[in-house]
């Protein structure tokens, strides 16, 4: 069962958070329009997730489709593999970015990208250690 009460509560939370952000921006409590944008995005995502959740409860065919989609082991494998590739590509792209930024004298960008690579590698290392204890 993919869409459960926990996911419904989470979608309502995102929606409420989004609405609060919009209200705070409209009433000038928050003065940057970026918060209104974030609020709009959160409200939309929360609303769509909530509608999916409700449809999942009512529509048996849809429930079967979603359960197959998220329970299917090949799909899980593809999702995991895609994340792994994404990670490799991001680290590689950032590494190239560091070199280009250094050559062009963009020291700040170079430093930020270097830290980002270090952070990703650090997260990978911690994740690996945690998973190797679990499995």
């Amino acid at each position: 069962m993919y869409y459960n009460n926990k996911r419904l509560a989470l979608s309502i939370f995102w929606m409420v958070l989004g609405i609060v952000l919009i209200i705070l921006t409209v009433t000038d409590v928050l003065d940057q329009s970026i918060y209104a944008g974030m609020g709009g995005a959160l409200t939309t995502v929360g609303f769509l997730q909530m509608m999916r959740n409700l449809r999942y409860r009512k529509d048996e065919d849809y429930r079967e489709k979603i359960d197959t989609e998220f329970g299917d082991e090949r799909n899980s494998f593809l999702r995991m593999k895609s994340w792994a590739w994404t990670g490799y590509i991001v680290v590689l792209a950032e590494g190239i970015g560091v070199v280009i930024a250094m050559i062009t004298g963009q020291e700040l960008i170079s430093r930020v990208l270097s830290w980002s690579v270090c952070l990703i590698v650090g997260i990978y290392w911690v994740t690996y250690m945690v998973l190797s204890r679990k499995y």
Partner: protein
Amino acid sequence: MKNRIEEIRNEKGIKQEDFAKLMGVSRQTISSLENGRYNPSILLAHKIAAYFGMAIEEVFIFEEE
């Protein structure tokens, strides 16, 4: 790893889509299994073999590379 899923499924006259539903996976997964593009987990392999009433090694043929 080769397998005889398509052969046995056809013998039993089951459509790919129906077989996918029975196994609780997508049709694409069955298609990938049959084409040898994807190797199943031991759980799915067991489920498939049990459905056919066979041992896993009768359905899946392990070949050392």
